[in-house]
Protein backbone atom coordinates (compact mmCIF):
# COMPACT_ATOMS: atom_id res chain seq x y z
CA UNK A 1 0.00 0.00 0.00
CA UNK A 2 1.27 3.48 -0.80
CA UNK A 3 1.24 6.47 1.48
CA UNK A 4 -1.80 7.92 -0.18
CA UNK A 5 -2.79 11.45 0.62
CA UNK A 6 -6.51 11.26 1.18
CA UNK A 7 -8.63 14.32 0.48
CA UNK A 8 -9.97 16.02 3.60
CA UNK A 9 -13.36 17.74 3.73
CA UNK A 10 -14.01 17.08 0.08
CA UNK A 11 -10.81 18.83 -0.96
CA UNK A 12 -8.69 17.72 -3.91
CA UNK A 13 -5.66 15.54 -3.36
CA UNK A 14 -2.44 17.48 -3.02
CA UNK A 15 -0.48 15.22 -5.32
CA UNK A 16 -2.37 13.70 -8.19
CA UNK A 17 -0.09 10.68 -8.50
CA UNK A 18 -0.24 9.82 -4.84
CA UNK A 19 -3.34 7.68 -5.18
CA UNK A 20 -3.84 4.41 -3.34
CA UNK A 21 -1.92 1.72 -5.15
CA UNK A 22 -1.29 -1.96 -4.75
CA UNK A 23 1.44 -4.20 -6.12
CA UNK A 24 0.62 -7.64 -7.44
CA UNK A 25 2.63 -10.47 -8.95
CA UNK A 26 1.46 -10.32 -12.54
CA UNK A 27 3.90 -12.03 -14.95
CA UNK A 28 5.19 -15.56 -14.40
CA UNK A 29 8.88 -16.21 -14.95
CA UNK A 30 8.20 -18.16 -18.19
CA UNK A 31 6.29 -15.22 -19.65
CA UNK A 32 9.00 -12.74 -18.70
CA UNK A 33 11.92 -14.85 -19.96
CA UNK A 34 10.26 -15.82 -23.23
CA UNK A 35 9.16 -12.19 -23.74
CA UNK A 36 12.71 -10.80 -23.66
CA UNK A 37 14.21 -13.67 -25.67
CA UNK A 38 11.48 -12.95 -28.20
CA UNK A 39 12.48 -9.27 -28.31
CA UNK A 40 16.03 -10.27 -29.28
CA UNK A 41 14.83 -12.89 -31.80
CA UNK A 42 12.33 -10.58 -33.50
CA UNK A 43 14.91 -7.78 -33.79
CA UNK A 44 17.44 -10.04 -35.51
CA UNK A 45 14.78 -11.83 -37.58
CA UNK A 46 13.34 -8.55 -38.87
CA UNK A 47 16.67 -6.95 -39.79
CA UNK A 48 18.13 -10.11 -41.35
CA UNK A 49 14.78 -10.77 -43.03
CA UNK A 50 14.93 -7.38 -44.74
CA UNK A 51 18.48 -8.26 -45.89
CA UNK A 52 17.10 -11.46 -47.46
CA UNK A 53 14.17 -9.55 -48.98
CA UNK A 54 16.62 -7.12 -50.60
CA UNK A 55 18.13 -9.97 -52.68
CA UNK A 56 14.90 -9.92 -54.68
CA UNK A 57 12.78 -6.93 -53.56
CA UNK A 58 9.60 -8.16 -55.21
CA UNK A 59 6.70 -10.30 -54.00
CA UNK A 60 4.23 -12.40 -55.98
CA UNK A 61 1.14 -14.54 -55.54
CA UNK A 62 1.13 -18.20 -56.55
CA UNK A 63 3.65 -21.00 -56.97
CA UNK A 64 6.22 -19.13 -59.07
CA UNK A 65 7.36 -15.56 -59.56
CA UNK A 66 10.52 -13.90 -60.90
CA UNK A 67 11.55 -10.81 -62.89
CA UNK A 68 9.23 -11.44 -65.85
CA UNK A 69 6.16 -12.08 -63.69
CA UNK A 70 3.90 -9.27 -62.42
CA UNK A 71 4.76 -8.51 -58.79
CA UNK A 72 2.24 -7.72 -56.05
CA UNK A 73 4.85 -5.70 -54.15
CA UNK A 74 8.04 -4.19 -55.48
CA UNK A 75 10.62 -1.86 -53.96
CA UNK A 76 12.15 -0.85 -57.26
CA UNK A 77 14.27 1.82 -58.88
CA UNK A 78 13.88 3.83 -62.08
CA UNK A 79 15.93 6.58 -63.71
CA UNK A 80 14.29 10.01 -63.48
CA UNK A 81 14.40 12.31 -66.57
CA UNK A 82 17.50 13.98 -65.09
CA UNK A 83 19.19 10.52 -64.98
CA UNK A 84 19.13 10.39 -61.17
CA UNK A 85 17.92 7.23 -59.46
CA UNK A 86 14.40 7.28 -58.11
CA UNK A 87 12.96 4.75 -55.67
CA UNK A 88 9.48 3.52 -56.62
CA UNK A 89 7.42 1.44 -54.21
CA UNK A 90 4.48 -0.56 -55.47
CA UNK A 91 1.99 -2.38 -53.23
CA UNK A 92 -0.94 -3.80 -55.17
CA UNK A 93 -2.56 -0.89 -57.03
CA UNK A 94 -0.71 1.72 -54.93
CA UNK A 95 2.47 3.24 -56.37
CA UNK A 96 4.56 6.01 -54.84
CA UNK A 97 8.01 7.59 -54.99
CA UNK A 98 10.10 6.45 -52.03
CA UNK A 99 13.64 7.67 -52.79
CA UNK A 100 15.80 7.64 -49.66
CA UNK A 101 13.77 4.93 -47.94
CA UNK A 102 12.60 2.15 -50.28
CA UNK A 103 14.06 1.20 -53.66
CA UNK A 104 16.84 3.76 -53.66
CA UNK A 105 18.79 5.04 -50.65
CA UNK A 106 22.15 6.85 -50.60
CA UNK A 107 22.00 6.80 -54.40
CA UNK A 108 22.16 3.00 -54.33
CA UNK A 109 19.56 0.56 -55.66
CA UNK A 110 18.41 -1.47 -52.66
CA UNK A 111 14.95 -2.46 -51.40
CA UNK A 112 15.26 -1.48 -47.74
CA UNK A 113 17.92 1.05 -46.62
CA UNK A 114 21.15 -0.13 -45.00
CA UNK A 115 20.10 0.99 -41.50
CA UNK A 116 17.22 -1.49 -41.65
CA UNK A 117 19.23 -4.54 -42.73
CA UNK A 118 21.56 -6.93 -40.97
CA UNK A 119 24.37 -6.77 -41.97
CA UNK A 120 24.08 -3.17 -43.13
CA UNK A 121 25.98 -3.93 -46.35
CA UNK A 122 24.55 -6.19 -49.03
CA UNK A 123 25.34 -9.68 -47.73
CA UNK A 124 22.64 -12.29 -48.36
CA UNK A 125 24.77 -15.20 -47.10
CA UNK A 126 25.32 -13.65 -43.66
CA UNK A 127 21.73 -12.41 -43.50
CA UNK A 128 20.50 -15.96 -44.11
CA UNK A 129 22.78 -17.45 -41.45
CA UNK A 130 21.51 -14.98 -38.82
CA UNK A 131 17.91 -15.46 -39.92
CA UNK A 132 17.94 -19.25 -39.61
CA UNK A 133 19.94 -19.26 -36.37
CA UNK A 134 17.49 -16.83 -34.76
CA UNK A 135 14.55 -18.70 -36.31
CA UNK A 136 15.52 -21.84 -34.39
CA UNK A 137 15.73 -19.92 -31.10
CA UNK A 138 12.45 -18.16 -31.92
CA UNK A 139 10.72 -21.51 -32.57
CA UNK A 140 12.08 -23.18 -29.41
CA UNK A 141 11.28 -20.09 -27.31
CA UNK A 142 7.79 -19.92 -28.82
CA UNK A 143 7.16 -23.62 -28.13
CA UNK A 144 8.20 -23.19 -24.49
CA UNK A 145 5.77 -20.27 -24.19
CA UNK A 146 2.88 -22.04 -25.96
CA UNK A 147 3.22 -25.36 -24.12
CA UNK A 148 3.69 -23.80 -20.67
CA UNK A 149 0.82 -21.35 -21.23
CA UNK A 150 -1.48 -24.18 -22.28
CA UNK A 151 -0.52 -26.26 -19.22
CA UNK A 152 -0.47 -23.55 -16.53
CA UNK A 153 -3.69 -21.93 -17.73
CA UNK A 154 -2.11 -18.61 -18.82
CA UNK A 155 -4.12 -18.65 -22.05
CA UNK A 156 -7.45 -19.54 -20.44
CA UNK A 157 -6.97 -17.33 -17.38
CA UNK A 158 -5.27 -14.26 -18.86
CA UNK A 159 -5.65 -14.15 -22.63
CA UNK A 160 -9.00 -15.60 -23.70
CA UNK A 161 -11.62 -12.81 -23.48
CA UNK A 162 -14.59 -13.48 -21.20
CA UNK A 163 -18.11 -13.60 -22.62
CA UNK A 164 -18.83 -10.21 -21.02
CA UNK A 165 -15.72 -8.70 -22.59
CA UNK A 166 -16.78 -9.83 -26.06
CA UNK A 167 -20.08 -7.92 -26.00
CA UNK A 168 -19.95 -5.23 -28.73
CA UNK A 169 -20.90 -2.53 -26.22
CA UNK A 170 -17.97 -3.50 -23.97
CA UNK A 171 -15.51 -3.61 -26.88
CA UNK A 172 -16.73 -0.21 -28.08
CA UNK A 173 -16.32 1.26 -24.58
CA UNK A 174 -12.83 -0.22 -24.48
CA UNK A 175 -11.95 1.42 -27.81
CA UNK A 176 -13.19 4.79 -26.50
CA UNK A 177 -11.19 4.36 -23.28
CA UNK A 178 -8.05 3.63 -25.30
CA UNK A 179 -8.65 6.66 -27.53
CA UNK A 180 -9.00 8.85 -24.43
CA UNK A 181 -5.85 7.27 -22.92
CA UNK A 182 -8.02 6.34 -19.94
CA UNK A 183 -6.61 3.43 -18.01
CA UNK A 184 -8.52 1.06 -15.80
CA UNK A 185 -8.17 1.18 -12.04
CA UNK A 186 -9.14 -1.20 -9.29
CA UNK A 187 -10.03 -4.79 -10.11
CA UNK A 188 -10.12 -4.02 -13.86
CA UNK A 189 -6.45 -3.01 -13.79
CA UNK A 190 -5.41 -6.46 -12.55
CA UNK A 191 -6.40 -8.22 -15.78
CA UNK A 192 -5.87 -7.51 -19.44
CA UNK A 193 -8.63 -5.54 -21.15
CA UNK A 194 -10.36 -7.00 -24.18
CA UNK A 195 -8.34 -5.09 -26.82
CA UNK A 196 -5.15 -6.14 -25.09
CA UNK A 197 -6.24 -9.78 -25.06
CA UNK A 198 -7.20 -9.71 -28.74
CA UNK A 199 -3.93 -7.97 -29.65
CA UNK A 200 -1.83 -10.54 -27.76
CA UNK A 201 -3.74 -13.50 -29.22
CA UNK A 202 -3.47 -11.85 -32.64
CA UNK A 203 0.28 -11.44 -32.47
CA UNK A 204 0.67 -15.06 -31.30
CA UNK A 205 -1.27 -16.09 -34.41
CA UNK A 206 0.91 -13.81 -36.58
CA UNK A 207 4.11 -15.30 -35.17
CA UNK A 208 2.77 -18.81 -35.82
CA UNK A 209 2.00 -17.79 -39.40
CA UNK A 210 5.54 -16.38 -39.71
CA UNK A 211 7.02 -19.78 -38.88
CA UNK A 212 4.64 -21.71 -41.15
CA UNK A 213 5.07 -19.40 -44.16
CA UNK A 214 8.83 -19.39 -43.54
CA UNK A 215 8.85 -23.19 -43.63
CA UNK A 216 6.76 -23.18 -46.82
CA UNK A 217 9.60 -21.34 -48.56
CA UNK A 218 11.94 -24.27 -47.80
CA UNK A 219 12.15 -26.77 -50.68
CA UNK A 220 13.13 -29.48 -48.18
CA UNK A 221 10.11 -28.85 -45.95
CA UNK A 222 7.82 -28.71 -49.01
CA UNK A 223 8.82 -32.27 -49.92
CA UNK A 224 7.99 -33.39 -46.36
CA UNK A 225 4.81 -31.34 -45.90
CA UNK A 226 3.34 -30.43 -49.31
CA UNK A 227 0.10 -29.48 -47.52
CA UNK A 228 1.74 -26.19 -46.50
CA UNK A 229 1.90 -25.14 -50.18
CA UNK A 230 -1.79 -25.93 -50.50
CA UNK A 231 -2.66 -23.93 -47.36
CA UNK A 232 -0.73 -20.80 -48.39
CA UNK A 233 -1.20 -21.08 -52.16
CA UNK A 234 2.41 -21.72 -53.15
CA UNK A 235 5.94 -20.69 -52.27
CA UNK A 236 5.63 -17.16 -53.63
CA UNK A 237 2.31 -16.60 -51.86
CA UNK A 238 3.93 -17.86 -48.66
CA UNK A 239 6.77 -15.34 -49.15
CA UNK A 240 4.21 -12.55 -49.61
CA UNK A 241 2.21 -13.60 -46.53
CA UNK A 242 5.50 -13.83 -44.58
CA UNK A 243 6.15 -10.17 -45.47
CA UNK A 244 2.59 -9.07 -44.63
CA UNK A 245 2.77 -10.80 -41.22
CA UNK A 246 6.18 -9.19 -40.56
CA UNK A 247 4.65 -5.77 -41.26
CA UNK A 248 1.73 -6.49 -38.93
CA UNK A 249 4.09 -7.65 -36.17
CA UNK A 250 6.08 -4.41 -36.55
CA UNK A 251 2.78 -2.51 -36.28
CA UNK A 252 1.91 -4.49 -33.12
CA UNK A 253 5.32 -3.73 -31.58
CA UNK A 254 4.95 0.00 -32.31
CA UNK A 255 1.49 0.16 -30.70
CA UNK A 256 2.73 -2.04 -27.84
CA UNK A 257 5.65 0.32 -27.10
CA UNK A 258 3.41 3.41 -27.33
CA UNK A 259 0.95 1.80 -24.90
CA UNK A 260 3.79 0.97 -22.51
CA UNK A 261 4.76 4.63 -22.44
CA UNK A 262 1.16 5.75 -21.99
CA UNK A 263 0.50 3.26 -19.19
CA UNK A 264 3.73 4.10 -17.35
CA UNK A 265 7.01 2.95 -18.73
CA UNK A 266 8.81 2.16 -15.47
CA UNK A 267 5.95 0.10 -14.04
CA UNK A 268 5.28 -1.72 -17.32
CA UNK A 269 8.89 -2.59 -18.16
CA UNK A 270 9.62 -3.25 -14.47
CA UNK A 271 6.75 -5.71 -14.27
CA UNK A 272 8.07 -7.61 -17.30
CA UNK A 273 11.43 -7.90 -15.50
CA UNK A 274 10.48 -8.51 -11.87
CA UNK A 275 6.93 -9.75 -12.40
CA UNK A 276 5.55 -7.19 -9.93
CA UNK A 277 3.00 -4.73 -11.26
CA UNK A 278 1.61 -1.71 -9.44
CA UNK A 279 -1.91 -0.53 -10.11
CA UNK A 280 -4.21 2.11 -8.67
CA UNK A 281 -6.89 0.67 -6.45
CA UNK A 282 -9.29 3.58 -7.05
CA UNK A 283 -9.77 7.01 -8.53
CA UNK A 284 -8.88 8.62 -5.21
CA UNK A 285 -12.01 10.72 -4.90
Amino acid at each position, binding site marked *: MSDAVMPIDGGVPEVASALPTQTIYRHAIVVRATHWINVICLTFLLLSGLQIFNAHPMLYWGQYGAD*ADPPFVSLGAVYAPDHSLRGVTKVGPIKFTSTGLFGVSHNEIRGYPSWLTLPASRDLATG*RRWHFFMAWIFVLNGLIYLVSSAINGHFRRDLVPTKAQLRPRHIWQNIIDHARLKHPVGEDAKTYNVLQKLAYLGVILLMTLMVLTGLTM*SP*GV*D*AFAPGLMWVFGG*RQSARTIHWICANLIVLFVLVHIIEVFIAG*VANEIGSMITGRYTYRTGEGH
Partner: protein
Amino acid sequence: MTDAALSRRGMIVAGTALGGLLLSGCDRLSQAPQALKFIDKAEGVTLGVQRLVLSGQPLAKEFKVSDISPTFKPNGTFTPSDPAYLAMEQNGFTDWRLAVGGLVNRPLSLSLDQLKALPNRTQITRHDCVEGWSAIAQWTGPQLGGLLHAAGLQPHARYVVFHCADNLGGPGDGGKYYESIDLFDAFHPQTILAHTMNNQPLAVPHGAPIRLRVERQLGYKQAKYVMAIEVTDRLNHIGGGHGGFWEDRGYEWYAGI
Protein backbone atom coordinates in the same frame (compact mmCIF):
# COMPACT_ATOMS: atom_id res chain seq x y z
CA MET B 1 4.96 13.99 -10.52
CA THR B 2 8.27 15.66 -11.35
CA ASP B 3 10.12 12.53 -10.36
CA ALA B 4 7.88 10.44 -12.56
CA ALA B 5 8.32 12.84 -15.48
CA LEU B 6 12.06 12.84 -14.97
CA SER B 7 12.28 9.10 -14.83
CA ARG B 8 10.09 8.86 -17.92
CA ARG B 9 12.31 11.27 -19.82
CA GLY B 10 15.36 9.41 -18.53
CA MET B 11 13.91 6.15 -19.80
CA ILE B 12 13.28 7.60 -23.26
CA VAL B 13 16.79 9.05 -23.50
CA ALA B 14 18.37 5.86 -22.19
CA GLY B 15 16.18 3.72 -24.43
CA THR B 16 17.06 5.70 -27.55
CA ALA B 17 20.77 5.68 -26.71
CA LEU B 18 20.66 1.96 -25.99
CA GLY B 19 18.73 1.34 -29.20
CA GLY B 20 21.30 3.25 -31.25
CA LEU B 21 24.15 1.45 -29.55
CA LEU B 22 22.45 -1.90 -30.14
CA LEU B 23 21.88 -1.19 -33.83
CA SER B 24 25.47 -0.17 -34.53
CA GLY B 25 26.74 -2.94 -32.25
CA CYS B 26 24.42 -5.39 -33.99
CA ASP B 27 25.99 -4.64 -37.34
CA ARG B 28 29.53 -5.14 -36.07
CA LEU B 29 28.51 -8.28 -34.22
CA SER B 30 26.66 -9.58 -37.27
CA GLN B 31 29.91 -9.97 -39.22
CA ALA B 32 32.27 -10.89 -36.36
CA PRO B 33 34.04 -14.18 -37.22
CA GLN B 34 33.41 -15.72 -33.78
CA ALA B 35 29.71 -14.86 -33.93
CA LEU B 36 29.41 -16.28 -37.46
CA LYS B 37 31.22 -19.46 -36.43
CA PHE B 38 28.72 -19.91 -33.62
CA ILE B 39 25.56 -19.23 -35.60
CA ASP B 40 26.81 -21.56 -38.38
CA LYS B 41 25.83 -24.40 -36.03
CA ALA B 42 22.22 -23.72 -37.03
CA GLU B 43 22.99 -25.21 -40.47
CA GLY B 44 23.82 -28.55 -38.85
CA VAL B 45 20.58 -28.46 -36.86
CA THR B 46 18.56 -27.68 -40.02
CA LEU B 47 20.32 -30.48 -41.92
CA GLY B 48 19.76 -32.95 -39.09
CA VAL B 49 16.07 -32.14 -38.68
CA GLN B 50 15.34 -32.08 -42.43
CA ARG B 51 17.17 -35.40 -42.91
CA LEU B 52 15.04 -36.85 -40.13
CA VAL B 53 11.73 -35.74 -41.65
CA LEU B 54 12.90 -36.60 -45.19
CA SER B 55 14.22 -40.05 -44.20
CA GLY B 56 11.43 -41.69 -46.20
CA GLN B 57 12.81 -39.88 -49.30
CA PRO B 58 9.51 -38.18 -50.27
CA LEU B 59 9.41 -36.55 -53.69
CA ALA B 60 9.38 -32.80 -54.22
CA LYS B 61 6.01 -31.65 -55.52
CA GLU B 62 5.57 -32.26 -59.25
CA PHE B 63 3.40 -29.78 -61.11
CA LYS B 64 1.10 -29.90 -64.13
CA VAL B 65 2.15 -28.70 -67.60
CA SER B 66 -0.17 -25.71 -67.13
CA ASP B 67 1.83 -24.67 -64.04
CA ILE B 68 5.08 -24.13 -66.01
CA SER B 69 6.39 -20.53 -65.76
CA PRO B 70 5.95 -18.54 -68.98
CA THR B 71 9.58 -17.41 -68.62
CA PHE B 72 12.35 -19.10 -66.65
CA LYS B 73 14.93 -16.60 -65.45
CA PRO B 74 18.53 -17.75 -66.05
CA ASN B 75 20.93 -16.76 -63.28
CA GLY B 76 24.66 -16.83 -62.61
CA THR B 77 26.56 -17.61 -65.81
CA PHE B 78 24.66 -17.02 -69.06
CA THR B 79 27.45 -18.24 -71.38
CA PRO B 80 30.69 -19.83 -70.16
CA SER B 81 33.76 -18.02 -71.53
CA ASP B 82 35.94 -21.17 -71.70
CA PRO B 83 37.06 -21.63 -75.38
CA ALA B 84 36.96 -25.43 -75.05
CA TYR B 85 33.34 -25.20 -73.91
CA LEU B 86 32.42 -22.80 -76.72
CA ALA B 87 34.00 -25.13 -79.28
CA MET B 88 31.87 -28.03 -77.98
CA GLU B 89 28.79 -25.86 -78.06
CA GLN B 90 29.50 -25.05 -81.74
CA ASN B 91 29.46 -28.79 -82.46
CA GLY B 92 26.20 -29.37 -80.66
CA PHE B 93 28.12 -31.08 -77.81
CA THR B 94 28.81 -34.13 -80.00
CA ASP B 95 32.38 -34.32 -78.64
CA TRP B 96 31.35 -33.53 -75.08
CA ARG B 97 31.90 -36.38 -72.60
CA LEU B 98 30.72 -36.62 -69.02
CA ALA B 99 33.48 -38.08 -66.87
CA VAL B 100 32.42 -40.02 -63.75
CA GLY B 101 35.41 -40.72 -61.55
CA GLY B 102 36.89 -40.52 -58.07
CA LEU B 103 35.99 -43.23 -55.57
CA VAL B 104 34.32 -45.52 -58.13
CA ASN B 105 35.23 -49.02 -59.32
CA ARG B 106 34.56 -48.35 -63.02
CA PRO B 107 35.22 -44.75 -64.15
CA LEU B 108 32.81 -43.75 -66.92
CA SER B 109 32.97 -41.45 -69.91
CA LEU B 110 29.55 -40.85 -71.44
CA SER B 111 28.39 -38.95 -74.50
CA LEU B 112 25.18 -36.93 -74.56
CA ASP B 113 23.53 -39.63 -76.71
CA GLN B 114 24.57 -42.32 -74.23
CA LEU B 115 23.00 -40.31 -71.39
CA LYS B 116 19.79 -39.90 -73.37
CA ALA B 117 19.72 -43.66 -74.08
CA LEU B 118 19.68 -44.46 -70.36
CA PRO B 119 16.33 -44.76 -68.57
CA ASN B 120 15.29 -41.10 -68.25
CA ARG B 121 12.97 -39.39 -65.81
CA THR B 122 10.76 -36.40 -66.65
CA GLN B 123 9.53 -34.11 -63.85
CA ILE B 124 7.87 -30.70 -63.62
CA THR B 125 9.34 -29.05 -60.54
CA ARG B 126 9.84 -25.69 -58.92
CA HIS B 127 13.26 -24.04 -58.99
CA ASP B 128 13.80 -21.90 -55.88
CA CYS B 129 16.53 -19.30 -56.01
CA VAL B 130 18.30 -18.37 -52.77
CA GLU B 131 17.37 -14.77 -53.66
CA GLY B 132 13.70 -15.58 -53.17
CA TRP B 133 12.19 -16.02 -56.64
CA SER B 134 10.83 -19.27 -58.11
CA ALA B 135 10.20 -20.67 -61.58
CA ILE B 136 8.63 -23.94 -62.71
CA ALA B 137 9.91 -26.06 -65.60
CA GLN B 138 9.86 -29.60 -66.94
CA TRP B 139 13.18 -31.45 -66.78
CA THR B 140 14.26 -34.70 -68.44
CA GLY B 141 17.41 -36.68 -67.78
CA PRO B 142 18.90 -39.90 -66.39
CA GLN B 143 18.86 -40.44 -62.64
CA LEU B 144 22.20 -39.78 -61.00
CA GLY B 145 21.70 -42.85 -58.80
CA GLY B 146 21.67 -45.14 -61.85
CA LEU B 147 24.92 -43.66 -63.10
CA LEU B 148 26.57 -44.09 -59.72
CA HIS B 149 25.40 -47.72 -59.57
CA ALA B 150 26.91 -48.32 -62.99
CA ALA B 151 30.20 -46.81 -61.87
CA GLY B 152 30.13 -48.73 -58.58
CA LEU B 153 30.87 -46.72 -55.43
CA GLN B 154 33.83 -47.55 -53.24
CA PRO B 155 33.19 -48.01 -49.50
CA HIS B 156 34.53 -44.57 -48.48
CA ALA B 157 32.33 -42.67 -50.94
CA ARG B 158 30.32 -39.92 -49.22
CA TYR B 159 29.90 -37.00 -51.60
CA VAL B 160 29.31 -36.40 -55.29
CA VAL B 161 31.09 -33.33 -56.67
CA PHE B 162 30.05 -31.64 -59.92
CA HIS B 163 32.79 -29.83 -61.85
CA CYS B 164 31.42 -27.19 -64.20
CA ALA B 165 32.65 -25.38 -67.31
CA ASP B 166 31.81 -21.87 -66.14
CA ASN B 167 34.03 -19.41 -64.30
CA LEU B 168 31.43 -17.37 -62.44
CA GLY B 169 34.09 -16.07 -60.05
CA GLY B 170 36.45 -14.84 -62.77
CA PRO B 171 39.35 -16.49 -64.60
CA GLY B 172 41.51 -19.14 -62.94
CA ASP B 173 40.72 -22.19 -60.84
CA GLY B 174 39.46 -20.03 -57.94
CA GLY B 175 36.60 -18.76 -60.08
CA LYS B 176 35.40 -22.17 -61.25
CA TYR B 177 31.83 -23.16 -60.47
CA TYR B 178 31.38 -26.47 -58.71
CA GLU B 179 28.85 -28.05 -56.39
CA SER B 180 28.47 -31.10 -54.19
CA ILE B 181 25.73 -33.20 -52.62
CA ASP B 182 25.89 -36.23 -50.37
CA LEU B 183 24.73 -39.74 -51.20
CA PHE B 184 21.36 -39.20 -49.49
CA ASP B 185 20.43 -36.64 -52.16
CA ALA B 186 22.48 -38.30 -54.93
CA PHE B 187 20.30 -41.43 -54.82
CA HIS B 188 16.98 -39.58 -54.53
CA PRO B 189 14.71 -40.56 -57.46
CA GLN B 190 14.30 -36.92 -58.58
CA THR B 191 18.03 -36.22 -58.65
CA ILE B 192 18.69 -36.23 -62.39
CA LEU B 193 21.17 -34.85 -64.93
CA ALA B 194 18.78 -32.81 -67.08
CA HIS B 195 19.63 -32.50 -70.78
CA THR B 196 16.09 -31.41 -71.77
CA MET B 197 14.05 -28.50 -70.39
CA ASN B 198 10.41 -27.95 -71.37
CA ASN B 199 10.85 -30.53 -74.18
CA GLN B 200 13.74 -28.56 -75.71
CA PRO B 201 17.46 -29.32 -75.53
CA LEU B 202 18.84 -27.47 -72.48
CA ALA B 203 19.78 -23.94 -73.65
CA VAL B 204 23.19 -22.44 -72.87
CA PRO B 205 21.90 -19.92 -70.27
CA HIS B 206 20.34 -22.87 -68.40
CA GLY B 207 23.49 -24.99 -68.40
CA ALA B 208 23.83 -26.91 -71.69
CA PRO B 209 24.52 -29.70 -72.22
CA ILE B 210 23.45 -30.91 -68.74
CA ARG B 211 22.61 -29.44 -65.38
CA LEU B 212 21.99 -31.15 -62.08
CA ARG B 213 18.47 -31.20 -60.64
CA VAL B 214 18.44 -31.87 -56.89
CA GLU B 215 14.87 -30.87 -56.23
CA ARG B 216 14.76 -30.49 -52.46
CA GLN B 217 17.46 -27.81 -52.39
CA LEU B 218 17.89 -24.24 -53.63
CA GLY B 219 18.94 -23.06 -57.09
CA TYR B 220 22.66 -22.70 -56.47
CA LYS B 221 22.90 -26.47 -55.89
CA GLN B 222 21.54 -27.10 -59.43
CA ALA B 223 24.99 -27.00 -61.07
CA LYS B 224 24.99 -25.99 -64.76
CA TYR B 225 27.50 -26.94 -67.54
CA VAL B 226 28.47 -30.16 -65.73
CA MET B 227 31.68 -31.57 -67.24
CA ALA B 228 32.79 -34.12 -64.66
CA ILE B 229 31.38 -35.95 -61.66
CA GLU B 230 33.80 -36.87 -58.89
CA VAL B 231 32.88 -39.20 -56.06
CA THR B 232 34.80 -38.33 -52.90
CA ASP B 233 34.99 -38.97 -49.17
CA ARG B 234 35.47 -35.32 -48.13
CA LEU B 235 35.11 -31.81 -49.52
CA ASN B 236 37.96 -29.87 -47.92
CA HIS B 237 40.44 -30.57 -50.72
CA ILE B 238 38.26 -29.19 -53.53
CA GLY B 239 38.00 -25.50 -54.45
CA GLY B 240 37.80 -23.35 -51.32
CA GLY B 241 36.99 -26.43 -49.26
CA HIS B 242 33.34 -25.73 -48.43
CA GLY B 243 31.74 -27.94 -51.06
CA GLY B 244 30.72 -25.42 -53.69
CA PHE B 245 31.24 -22.08 -55.42
CA TRP B 246 28.68 -20.22 -53.30
CA GLU B 247 29.53 -22.26 -50.20
CA ASP B 248 33.10 -20.90 -50.50
CA ARG B 249 31.49 -17.44 -50.47
CA GLY B 250 29.58 -17.90 -47.21
CA TYR B 251 26.39 -19.71 -48.28
CA GLU B 252 25.24 -22.90 -46.57
CA TRP B 253 26.34 -26.24 -48.02
CA TYR B 254 22.91 -27.62 -47.10
CA ALA B 255 20.46 -25.50 -49.08
CA GLY B 256 17.22 -27.22 -48.12
CA ILE B 257 15.89 -23.95 -46.66
